[in-house]
């Protein structure tokens, strides 16, 4: 279970408060959506969950399975099961996709006390999972994300997620830059990972993604805190009314 308790976050370099008392609970087996206008702190929440530098938690806590993760390095969090699918996946010139996947997979397996995958085992697993996401293994021989289209980058993120078998999946604006076909492939990939052992937090500006990844709960994030929570129908309401009611101005 993910428990975010009264979280206050500011930028480390400047005196600007982004999250102002955010409280949220996501039980295992559930998919929660966070919706909100631009600048409401959605991406900050995603980065703070993953442990990126540049943010300072001034109050509150984040517990994952009852344990605070705030003091953990990003790689320790990954080993604990936290995974962030980036809004803008990074390109790593000079590192082949397969090398990257294998290094990451074996690093988390090692930390989790599982046996590292041998090359043939790894190749079998990666081929199987890549096929389900319409990713050709040839593409993974190229440097990570270099020259990939927006859709290819997002599918590559979901493949990483499938390989690392996280228990807390945070998807930051996964629908941005996707056409309708790519959206379906990516959503199918995410849905395939839904499981009673896994919690998911889907961050999005638009309701469109939630037609494909149907959430158990929807939360509205505005001005640094959760303003309203409800069922999946809340997303449809927001699509009609916009975020004006939460920001005091038209979004």
């Amino acid at each position, binding site marked *: 279970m993910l428990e975010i308790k009264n979280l206050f976050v500011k930028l480390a370099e400047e005196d600007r408060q982004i999250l102002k008392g955010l409280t949220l609970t996501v039980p295992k087996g559930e998919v929660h959506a966070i919706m909100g206008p631009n600048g409401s702190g959605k991406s900050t929440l995603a980065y703070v969950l*993953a442990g*990126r530098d540049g943010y300072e938690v001034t109050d509150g806590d984040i517990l994952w399975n009852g344990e605070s993760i705030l003091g953990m390095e990003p*790689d320790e969090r990954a080993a604990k099961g936290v995974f962030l699918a980036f809004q803008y996946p990074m390109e*790593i*010139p000079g590192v082949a996709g397969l090398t*990257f996947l294998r290094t990451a997979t074996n*690093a*988390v397996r090692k930390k989790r006390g599982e046996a590292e995958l041998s090359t043939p085992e790894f190749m079998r697993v990666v081929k199987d999972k890549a096929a389900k996401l319409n990713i050709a293994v040839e593409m993974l021989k190229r440097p990570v994300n270099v020259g990939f289209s927006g859709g290819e980058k997002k599918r590559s993120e979901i493949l990483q997620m499938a390989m690392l078998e996280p228990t807390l999946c945070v998807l930051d604006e996964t629908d941005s830059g996707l056409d309708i076909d790519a959206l379906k492939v990516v959503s199918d990939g995410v849905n395939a990972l839904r499981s009673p052992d896994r919690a998911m937090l889907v961050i999005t500006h638009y309701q469109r993604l939630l037609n494909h990844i149907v959430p158990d709960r929807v939360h509205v994030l505005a001005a640094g805190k959760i303003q309203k929570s409800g069922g999946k129908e809340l997303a449809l309401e927001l699509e009609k009314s916009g975020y004006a009611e939460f920001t005091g101005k038209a979004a």
Partner: protein
Amino acid sequence: MSVQVTKTKAEQMLTEAFAGAEAALPGSDAVTKLRREAIGAFSALGLPTRRVEEWKYTDLRARLADSFPVAMDSVSGSQAIGGLLDGTAPGLLPGLNAYTIVFVDGALEPRTLPEDVKGLEVLPLATALESVPAWVEKALGETARPADAAVALNTALMAGGVAMRIADDVSLDRPIHLVFAQSGSEPKLVTTRVIVDLGARASLSLVETHVAMGTSVRQQNTLVTLALGEAAQVAHVKNLTVDKGSIHLSNSVVRLGARATYKPFQMTTGGGLVRHGLDLRFEGTHASLDFAALALPDMSGHVDTTLVIDHRVAHCTSRELYKCVLDGTARGVFQGKVIVAPGAQKTDGKQMAQALMLSPEAEFDSKPELEIYADDVVCGHGSTSAEIDEDLLFYCRSRGIPKAEARALLIESFIGEVIDKVEHEALREALVARAGAWLRAGHV
């Protein structure tokens, strides 16, 4: 040019070292004359300072406090060379199936000279300097009347080395690996010369490894001349480690015939002072140079790579890719001068120098120079210097890769591009392993 009145201690010692060693240095009367002219040139030039443009970032006069005793090509051949021959000694390239010729403190191990290789003539340097066949005479002519102090000192003091000639249309089945090992505990001045001459359409993979086996500090001066006949091809890998306190001055003097291709690659590690010079001249049209270098100095190392590429004729191509990873107070220097002569139309020249800075105290000096006297040419250059990208580092770590491993991965990706230029697979893998060992030695 100004006449230097005051000589430094090192300058004096080097001149005296020549006087003391001259009688024992090998060579015919003509070679003796060359040596005397060279030491005369050195006396006039003095050790280079920052005022000499080619040495702007490596003040040898300031860095060289004194000279070490001269090592002669007369050392007994009794040193343990097993590990040098099979590539298992540290710093060597295991798995490289090559004709390996071993030099210990500059002295040739005669047992390692390859025999009966069809199309290959190979002479110990001393023999070549006594008999001076026409191709050796021509090679020596390329370094006569030197304008560079390191070249002058090499000509004056060259003691050990080898001269090789490959006949027209001959491609050797294996690389030739020249292993220069430094042994013992006494400081020494080691001066070596390698002469390589390739006939038309001949091809050669030449590998040089310079490695310290003992504990002594060295001043090493090494010079390779390469003459490539029409359509000849040379891949020339230089792999060296120069320890702290040691100085390695190297020069390559390369002349390319029409349609010849020259692909040098240098990988330098260690904490010493290293200077690589390349003086390359295109003498026939449609020839090409594909230069790549990787400097991985230790914390206090200094690696200077200075090229002068002379496009004397039309339709030639030159490419230079230089990368360095700098930690501690290490310093990387890249100077790439490209001269395009008035008639050298359709010249295509590009160079790129990139530094990855691991420490705020490290320094990278990069100076491209283009002197273009022809009007129909394409020439470009670029230079970058950057730290490890924090965003990329976070991306890797968010996938569970620990910090040190993520840094290593990103550094490897930076240097991968340049090592990939080495086409010989076993050699490339050995170099990748060497770079990996450097990384794991505390640089991530």
